[in-house]
């Protein structure tokens, strides 16, 4: 190496050539991600190494020194100021037109803002309502009506308003706890017959689906930010960043054994907002 300083550079360039040809072959044979990545790395890295080695070993290592001069001289500044003012005087002479020009620009800018409104519809009441109405049948994700006896004590099922399976804001968790274990105010308890209680599945913190149920401790846990809700006490938050309980969906069990809603959720579902 000592006597042949250009040898490593040549070696690196040969690596690039071989890897480049290899890439073409691999691609032609049908491609394989790992080999493609490795060959590409050799081809690119070889070329890069060749350039750096060339510079380091074969080129004179000289240092250049330059003067720094950033700010302009006082005369330059004065001249620039004068040029700016001379142009500005043209506007000063026609005050009225200059003001009209400003107004025209403002009007145009205002007009350009309006299409922003087309980006989305008005929020209106959509954040306050879901598709649940009195008598709506609860269905599972496939749209099949849910019978009360399907839910054993300690188990949980995600239900939707009939006609809206997979609905993002209508999703609710149907949970059965031991009868009489729920500690709810009387009007809320009426919407939770036989230990069967339904809560919105949308976390009141950042809107993730509250996907984890710890049946032993009757806790619902949101996997996103670990907000924890106590099922027995009306899904009050017990830990984590959520501050509002999960809204309850009042339900009843019909004579046919199907679970029906008695109305919409007790409160708007999902994360909080200004008007809530």
């Amino acid at each position, binding site marked *: 190496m000592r*006597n042949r*300083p250009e040898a490593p550079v040549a070696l690196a360039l040969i690596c690039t050539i071989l890897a480049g040809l290899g890439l073409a072959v691999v*691609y032609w044979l049908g*491609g394989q*991600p*790992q080999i*493609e*990545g*490795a060959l*590409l*790395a*050799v*081809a*690119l*890295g070889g070329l*890069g190494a060749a*350039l*750096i080695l*060339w*510079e380091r070993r074969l*080129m004179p*290592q000289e240092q*250049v*020194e*330059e*003067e*720094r001069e*950033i700010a302009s001289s006082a005369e330059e500044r004065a001249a620039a100021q004068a040029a700016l003012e001379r142009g500005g005087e043209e506007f000063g002479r026609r005050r009225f037109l200059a003001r009209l020009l400003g107004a025209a620009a403002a009007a145009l800018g205002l007009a350009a803002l309006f299409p922003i*409104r087309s*980006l*989305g*519809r008005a*929020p209106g009441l*959509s*954040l306050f309502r879901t598709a649940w109405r009195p008598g709506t049948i609860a269905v599972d*994700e496939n749209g099949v009506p849910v019978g009360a006896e399907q839910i054993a004590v300690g188990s949980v099922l*995600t239900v939707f308003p009939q006609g809206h399976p997979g609905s*993002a*804001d209508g999703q609710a968790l149907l949970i059965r706890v031991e009868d009489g274990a729920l500690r709810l105010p009387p009007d809320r308890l009426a919407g939770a017959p036989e230990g069967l209680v339904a809560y919105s599945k949308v976390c009141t*913190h*950042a*809107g*993730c*689906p509250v996907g984890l149920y710890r049946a032993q401790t009757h806790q619902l846990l949101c*996997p*996103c*930010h*670990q907000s*924890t809700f106590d099922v027995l006490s009306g899904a009050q938050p017990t*830990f*984590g*960043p*959520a*501050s*509002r309980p999960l809204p309850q969906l009042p339900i009843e069990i019909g004579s046919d054994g199907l679970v029906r809603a008695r109305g919409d959720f007790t409160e708007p579902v*999902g994360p*909080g*907002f*200004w*008007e809530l």
Partner: protein
Amino acid sequence: MVLWLDDRLGTATFARRSLRKAFPDHWSFMLGEIALYCFVLLVLTGTFLAFFYVASPREVVYQGPYEPLRGAEMSAAYESVLRLSFEVRAGLVMRQIHHWASLLFLAAITVHLLRIFFTGAFRRPREINWIVGVTLLLLGLAAGFTGYSLPDDLLSGTGVRIAYSILLSVPLIGTWAAFLAFGGEFPSAELLGRLYAMHIFLIPAAIGGAIAVHLALIWHQKHTQFRAPGRREETVVGSPLWPNYSMKAVGLALIVFGVLSLLGGLFQINPVWTYGPFDPTTVSSPAQPDWYLGWIEGALRLAPNWEIRTFGYRIPEPFFPGVLFPALFFAGVYLWPFIERRLTGDDHEHHLLDRPRDNPMRTGIGVAILTFAIVLTLAGSNDVLGSFLRIPVENVTRGLRVLVLVLPTLLGWVAYRVAGELRGREVSAGRYVVLTRTADGGFAEVHEHPRRDVARSEREPEEAARAERRAGRAERRARRALKRAERFLRRAKREERRAAQERDGTERPWKGRGER
């Protein structure tokens, strides 16, 4: 060629001056370059991806070759990403290189920013470029988030949903802002198209423009340099642009491309097929964003569940960690050059860099903020930490809530003291020891006391009091350095003799590594 161009554009004058322009050699000046090369690679690979990606929420049933998902309902967007990954030849490599490049892009920007911060390179006259650079970081975050969300998989969909909730939490305008930005209540059919337009057009165009300004300012203002013998405020020293610096820069670019190709080929990243298509009623657990948003995720997880209710209106919990905290954070970063000027009263031009020890206050604050961000990033994975350490996640969160306040204070204070200590030593011992050769072949020491440090030691009499005790230590250090220098000189002489012999034999016009 030169004539032809010069006749038409007058390029010779420009070239004469520019080709010999001085560019930096120190490795820490290459961090921003790495970010630039990542951006180039992102544009190249991203263009390839854009040829195959379909930004459509239309429901389709998967019929492709990936067995576990066959028959599953998914969006056309998600399906197009699966097709790109499994059916398009070299598609998976391109996608993975793109993702790795985005991670490195933001990492390089962040480390570059830290280098600029801790060496004081943002001081007058470079405040404008600091602002452009911080803007580039913000744009990079936006590019990362929008791109990460495009595959419409379960993991990224959860991230979009959290972003929607954060936007919704803004006081007064939150609901309207969220509905206009997302095209209605989440999940909306408009969203993918919007993310796509932002990701492949708006944000890259803005990044390209900001990079152009960033580089133009560096070109105009010239680079900063570390203090060393022969380095002055009035001049700038470095390699000439042509050919040395150009060779090194293109070489570094290619090596960055090579490393990213290796990562993209051998190390799986964002395997969206294992997450499944987005479904607003399910969530993957654990769910973490890419590393650069970990600090906001951590803030959301650690923040207490406070919300404000007044006059029938509500400021919900995510506003504070999700909007207010990042806004204040970036406001502070943007304004730092001006804050520091106010704190130190130093409004002089600086082209010679500080080392972290030269400004203990800045170093302490920087370390504290960095620690804060790192603890928050850890908190963004508190569930993973919990299962790793076998501790209930509630206790991890409680512990981190304490740590996020205690650790930055502690480490910031330690950094402040250590930097002050190191600086104090140098003030007493002299900043560096310069050895000169005397006529009779021996060595003599020359102590240099940069003017600034002497002034500081006058301001701080206690430093002068400690100087006595340190003088002995400094002397011993200087003796050791002297011995090293003698060894070095003997070796250099040996090599010189050998080189002379070689030159006589072969006459090679190159200079070896050791001689530089």
